[in-house]
């Protein structure tokens, strides 16, 4: 379910680090909690984002949620697919429905986040609280 080469936050974002660059999205668990996604508010290219700070929002039919950055860096790209097809976040949150690409301030920063196995057990315990 959760790609093993990604890192995960407790707020249910993922980051895939590739050298000095990172790709950021929200997890399958996050999309299933949100329900039908209808709008994504993205930062502008060039925006400096900070680890733990909100860089955008995802709106579903029932609620709006902040997206918190798993890493610090500068936004180099936002996913053009999501402007017209935000529902892709529900169907493919880990691959085609990535949110932003960033140039990382510190490529090692993401190493402190959860790996896939840790995130899966984190989500399993969160689901039990429901």
């Amino acid at each position, binding site marked *: 379910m959760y790609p093993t080469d990604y890192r995960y936050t407790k707020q249910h974002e993922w980051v895939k680090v590739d050298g000095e660059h990172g790709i950021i999205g929200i997890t399958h668990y996050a999309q299933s909690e949100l329900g039908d996604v*209808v709008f994504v508010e993205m930062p502008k290219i060039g925006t400096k984002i900070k680890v733990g700070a909100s860089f955008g929002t995802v709106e579903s*039919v*029932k*609620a709006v*949620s902040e997206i918190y950055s798993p890493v610090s860096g500068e936004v180099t790209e936002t996913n053009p697919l999501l402007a017209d097809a935000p529902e892709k976040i529900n169907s493919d949150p880990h691959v085609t429905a990535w949110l932003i690409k960033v140039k990382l301030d510190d490529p090692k920063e993401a190493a402190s986040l959860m790996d896939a196995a840790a995130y899966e057990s984190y989500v399993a315990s969160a689901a039990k609280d429901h």
Partner: protein
Amino acid sequence: MFGRHGSNLPVTTPAIAEIRKTALNAVHRRLNARMVNFGGWDMPLEYSGILAEHDAVRTRAGLFDVSHMGEIEITGPGAQSLVQWVSCNNAAKLIDGQIQYSGLMTSRGTFVDDLLVHRISGTHYMLCVNASNQDADFAHIVAHNKFDAKIENAGPRYSQLAVQGPRAAEILQKLTPVSLSPVHYYYFVSGKVSGIDCLIARTGYTGEDGFEIYFAPEHSEKLWDDLMSAGAPFGLIPAGLGARNTLRLEAGMCLYGHEIDDTTTPWEAGLAWICKMEKAPFLGSDVLAKQKQDGLPRKLAGFEMLDKRIGRDGYPVEVAGKQVGRVTSGCPSPTLKKNIGMAYVPPDLTALATDLEIDIRGQKAAARIISLPFYKRPQ
């Protein structure tokens, strides 16, 4: 994620008080519904998804467990006088088997609750009230019972299912010998559904044709299963509170705690059609008469967003940088494919095409007043 704000539903975090469950709780869990605490009740928010469920109700049919709703029975020679005294619509106009949307009034002319008044006979009324208000409603009616009527807080004696959508009548007809076509909108009959005694009412909270059926809770699973089976060939699916909210909002219907509460009057809420001054005096009628004469401080209006963002519950409404009101409910409209909402604003700002701004988490988004209801079903 989940730094949440602006949820459309009064979802509360689990309180210390024990959460209440309908007789269908196990069914919802078997269907893998996403459950929420809705006013102290563990209720299904969605099964297959709000959009799919919303679409099913608009185009085919949906089945809702609304057993959390409260029922209050008023009987005896003073029953009608009591209903007339505590509610703002004119229950004297009802005939046996007829239903009326009304408001339970405070002495200030504001809403204790909104409700459906079912006239079983001139000495027997069944009120269907909101789940989270039922105990307060009961206490309120008891406190104003100067007519010696018998009042029963009857919620535990009833389950309620709503079959809603253009195919609802065909589906329900398969399970009942009662001919449904003579049962017009806002009328009810007593009869068997699946061999079970039911009150079958042609009412709903979706803007579609449909029925709300009331019966003893022990039959809940059988009726649910039989309706699901009868409805499957018509495309009926289970629907939760999420779709119920988007459906009612498109239909311009008020939700207690959002458009109406104990600070809003029927005039302000656009509910003059349920507030009948000719039957005065009733609770709050003096205040209502005065407000009608003096003019309203605010009025409920419908708006559409002019950009992709959603003006949600509680967001400030502004004109020329000055706050003029607040959003009471807002959501994407799955049927109309735009973002809609309702808000209280000063009456002079309710003219059609008035431009507003909604403060969405610090950013201004353009909105425009449009007419209510947003959606009206094809006749």
